[in-house]
């Protein structure tokens, strides 16, 4: 004789027809006699009928084949954008055909507006990119370029190093100060600061050092005097 616990454990399989006939028969006989298990069976059947309300829709076994066949039978369609462009071009063509002769002889921009406009757009893009790539903006100019525009005082000497120490003494004697010394090929660039009142006397005294060429604008943007000590070629 089968026990209630065993029956309850097999109820799902019993209701869904998973049990072998002999066990199914035993349970059936038990259920006819046991009210408690019968109640359990009824509740489970009710639960399963509730689950049936959310059962996923079933498809026929050949569903996939049928869908695939239908997809294959569909003719390829032109992309929407292409047909739209085609439509616009046709529209403009129609317009140009209807207008009078002088207009008909208008350039390609009217007769075939879309390709012509596209070409113009591409050309504009190329010009724009080239301009941005090859035309330097103000920000791109290095600061050193501004110094190059200054025409400094040039002193030509066989020994720029020696000349520098002489220059230093002269600058000191005029109460000035050497701010910067830069070694450049075959020369020394000196940046110095001097009292404006003593400037002309200082420049005049430079002539005693050697051959001096005074440029038009020997001051940088900060008002400092630029002197280049260049090596005299033999």
């Amino acid at each position, binding site marked *: 004789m089968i026990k209630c616990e065993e029956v309850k454990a097999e109820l799902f399989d019993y209701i869904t027809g*998973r049990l072998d006939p002999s066990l199914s028969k035993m349970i059936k006989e038990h259920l006819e006699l046991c009210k408690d298990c019968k*109640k359990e069976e009824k*509740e*489970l059947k*009710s*639960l*399963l009928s509730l*689950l049936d*309300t959310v059962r996923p829709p079933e498809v026929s076994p050949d569903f996939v084949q049928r869908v695939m066949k239908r997809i294959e039978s569909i003719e390829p369609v032109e992309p929407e954008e292409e047909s739209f462009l085609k439509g616009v071009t046709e529209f403009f063509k129609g317009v140009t055909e209807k207008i009078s002769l002088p207009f008909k002889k208008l350039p390609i921009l009217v007769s075939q507006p879309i390709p012509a406009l596209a070409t113009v757009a591409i050309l504009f893009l190329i010009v724009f990119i080239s301009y941005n790539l090859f035309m330097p903006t103000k920000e791109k100019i290095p600061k050193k370029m501004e110094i190059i525009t200054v025409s400094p005082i040039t002193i030509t000497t066989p020994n720029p190093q020696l000349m520098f120490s002489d220059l230093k003494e002269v600058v000191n004697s005029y109460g000035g100060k050497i701010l910067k010394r830069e070694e450049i090929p075959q020369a020394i660039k000196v940046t110095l600061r001097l009292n404006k009142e003593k400037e002309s006397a200082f420049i005049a005294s430079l002539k005693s050092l050697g051959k001096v060429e005074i440029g038009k604008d020997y001051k940088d943007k900060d008002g400092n005097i630029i002197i280049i000590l260049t090596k005299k070629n033999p």
Partner: protein
Amino acid sequence: MVDNFEDTLVDKKAINSEEAVIKKELREIVLRCLAKLSPERRALIYLLYYEQLKYKEVAYILDWPGGTAKSNLVRSLQMLKKCLKPYLQKGEI
């Protein structure tokens, strides 16, 4: 006669729409209860009940040891019963 016929039609429509609303609500309740189960147990119910697979097949799919599918089913059904208790037909005879 015609009036009666129209009244009957209206009544039937009303009943049908009312039934549809009740069914919809019931479906939502069932789905909510199913959602309370773990994803694996939901898969178990789906595979066993809706797809009618065997226990061995379900255990293989869910990577469970043999026998686990059945014990999990019993627990899942208990949980669903508890959740759907007000909507279950009582088994009193």
